[in-house]
């Protein structure tokens, strides 16, 4: 699906893109029920995608690729990266920093409840052994949650704590009344702790610019 | 200023131990669980009770008793001079607290743990004795809502002007600056639950004034009982007729 240069058409919200009987509304477009027209809902480039040859619906899809889409918003099912802020006996709160690979503009609050930490032996999970404030966690969004927070889950092999830092706060961090032996596992700069429900240890990303 | 004429009549023509006309109306606010309008002469208040219901603010929830809340507000037009006061000024906070504590004392809160009862009182006209009128209205509204109570609470005020104890002060008498005793009693148990006085008064005079106020409370209690009695009969009739909404007015 390559868009040719001369096909670049800019549209703004509310512009008519076609009839619902002739085209399907893709991203950035919607169908008005009362008159059966397809309108744009974003500003951006109009693209017409031809349907896959084997699909029963042979209408082409029109979509508007936003020149500037709004910041990402967590949705049920999306994988997020969050920083743990507070650990309680039944749940841990975390600030969602990235949705997918994109960083959010302003943080969203999430909570990981005890039953969503791992897939097995869910009643034996000790929240304080699983998370520490400051940990970076990969989690998936279970639901929109309640008025305050999104409900997150780490109960999958590829989810869980990916990184915990012990730079400046190292000393304070290590002397924990729960398990001093954890100190043994601390590397000087990045450590990984407690894998949840699996042995897979993944390390945090760093990037190189340029 | 002369508040009691040589003939022994007050400014509004009452005798010193005479009460203003009482009037009550129940079930004014259809959406509330219980509601009542109570009038003492020109003082008119409306009370609405919501609950027992789920506690709105979970942190206030109590596992052994119900949470009782109260808000007192005055309508802009309730006083002679029009005023526009912000909500939650000192006076209304104080009265809210007084009403809440008085009502809490007689509600059997332990029967309704983890729940919340809201009492809202709105003054439509203020002509002295709003505190008492609010408590009386709240009692009626609580009864209307079917909330279990130890006893009803009734309240009345009395003052002391021109060396005469006066029952049920109106606004002019109230603002004369003399002592003003507000009493709230549980009439059947014959116990005083609320007593407020804010002026200097010799002890023996005080006893007279308080006794007068208590007599006033009892009169209010009789009136309220009568309203209720009438209402209970009405409920039976209404039940028979399968009419759901009703309103009943009673003039003392």
């Amino acid at each position, binding site marked *: 699906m390559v868009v040719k240069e001369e096909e670049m058409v800019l549209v703004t919200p509310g512009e008519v893109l076609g009839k619902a009987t002739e085209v399907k509304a893709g991203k950035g477009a919607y169908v008005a029920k009362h008159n059966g027209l397809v309108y744009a809902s974003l500003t951006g480039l109009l693209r017409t995608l031809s349907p896959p040859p084997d699909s029963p619906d042979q209408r082409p899809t029109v979509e508007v690729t936003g020149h500037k889409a709004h910041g990402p918003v967590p949705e049920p099912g999306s994988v997020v990266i969050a920083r743990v802020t507070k650990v309680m006996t039944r749940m841990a709160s975390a600030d969602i920093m990235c949705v997918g690979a994109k960083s959010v503009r*302003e943080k969203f609050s999430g909570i990981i409840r005890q039953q969503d930490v791992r897939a097995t032996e869910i009643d034996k999970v000790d929240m304080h052994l699983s998370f520490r404030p400051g940990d970076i966690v990969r989690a998936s969004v279970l639901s929109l949650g309640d*008025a305050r927070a999104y409900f997150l889950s780490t109960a999958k092999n590829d989810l869980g704590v990916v990184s915990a830092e012990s730079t400046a706060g190292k000393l304070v961090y290590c002397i924990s009344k729960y398990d001093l032996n954890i100190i043994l596992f601390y590397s000087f700069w990045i450590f990984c702790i407690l894998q949840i429900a699996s042995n897979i240890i993944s390390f945090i990303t760093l990037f190189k610019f340029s | 200023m002369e508040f009691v004429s040589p003939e022994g009549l007050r400014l509004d023509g009452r005798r010193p131990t005479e009460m203003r006309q009482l009037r009550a109306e129940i079930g004014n606010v259809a959406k509330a669980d219980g509601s009542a309008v109570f009038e003492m002469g020109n003082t008119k208040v409306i009370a609405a009770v919501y609950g027992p219901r789920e506690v709105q603010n979970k942190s206030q929830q109590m596992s052994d008793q119900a949470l009782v809340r109260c808000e007192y507000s005055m309508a802009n037009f309730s006083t002679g001079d029009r005023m526009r006061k912000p909500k939650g000024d000192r006076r209304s906070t104080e009265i809210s607290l007084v009403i809440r504590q008085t009502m809490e004392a007689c509600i059997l809160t332990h029967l309704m743990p983890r729940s919340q009862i809201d009492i809202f009182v709105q003054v439509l006209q203020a002509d002295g004795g709003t505190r008492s009128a609010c408590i009386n209205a709240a009692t009626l509204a609580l009864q209307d809502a079917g909330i279990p109570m130890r006893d009803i609470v009734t309240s009345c005020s009395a003052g002391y002007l021109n060396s005469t104890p006066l029952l049920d002060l109106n606004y002019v008498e109230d603002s004369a600056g003399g002592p003003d005793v507000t009493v709230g009693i549980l009439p059947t148990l014959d116990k005083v639950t609320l007593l407020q006085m804010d002026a200097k008064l010799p002890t023996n005079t005080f006893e007279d004034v308080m006794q007068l106020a208590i007599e006033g409370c009892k009169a209010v209690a009789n009136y309220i009982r009568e309203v209720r009695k009438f209402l209970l009969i009405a409920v039976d009739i209404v039940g028979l007729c399968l009419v759901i909404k009703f309103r009943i007015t009673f003039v003392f």
Partner: protein
Amino acid sequence: MAAKPSTTTTAKATYSPIDPTRKTRPPIFSGSDVDWLRPDSRGFHQCRPAFFRTGAVNSASGSAYAEFGNTKVIVSVFGPRESKKAMMYSNIGRLNCNVSYTTFATPIRGQGSDHKDFSSMLHKALEGAIILETFPKTTVDVFALVLESGGSIRFLVKQVDELDTLWFAVGDLPVVISCASVALADAGIMMYDLVASVSVSCLGKNLLIDPVLEEESYQDGSLMIACMPSRYEVTQLTVTGEWSTPHFNEAMQLCLDASAKLGKIMRSCLKEAASDEQE
């Protein structure tokens, strides 16, 4: 310059019941429909020159600046972001609007306070145009700041008390609404359509489009429409003053036509910004 209404009636010593025969009419239309020149010498059905620019505030998700004659407005859009803690859970997104004035927006130095009335009107004008279902539970904040109000001439208002509540130039509101819809489009918030808003003042038999403060203070009636030009739907409508039905129809049609034109200007501004970004 329009003078203050001259004394057409002798001062009455006492209160008198309404005299239906007496009609106070501003002297500017005392005769027939004289050629009343508008302060900025526009035609009756001519709007002030409108100018829009997106991206006025970098720290916002989207923003726009609008200038209609002397009315200057900046609107920032933030979000979709987390709703305030006190909010209840909601399946659809929330829109939160706020309009405030600078202290120097009005000819007499003001308090620079929030304008609650405009905030709620802005909310009503926009909520029908935003696809709130696309950002459940979160909030989009639309904040507007009126840098300068439309009162072009140093118009002396000596006392502003509790009773003069409606003394702000209502003519600023359409600018705020239109500008906010451009800012929303700039922020990439999904919308059914842009919202273009226009007001008319009725002076005597004449309809004056896009009035300035001075004209508004003499108006017999006003009509403000916010509409979605492409869908041809009205999202907000406020009318004051007395209107017969045909007169109302005429005014509404005038507004709808003008907002269709305004919508074109808004679209071209957005497209320009988008094509700049492409390059």
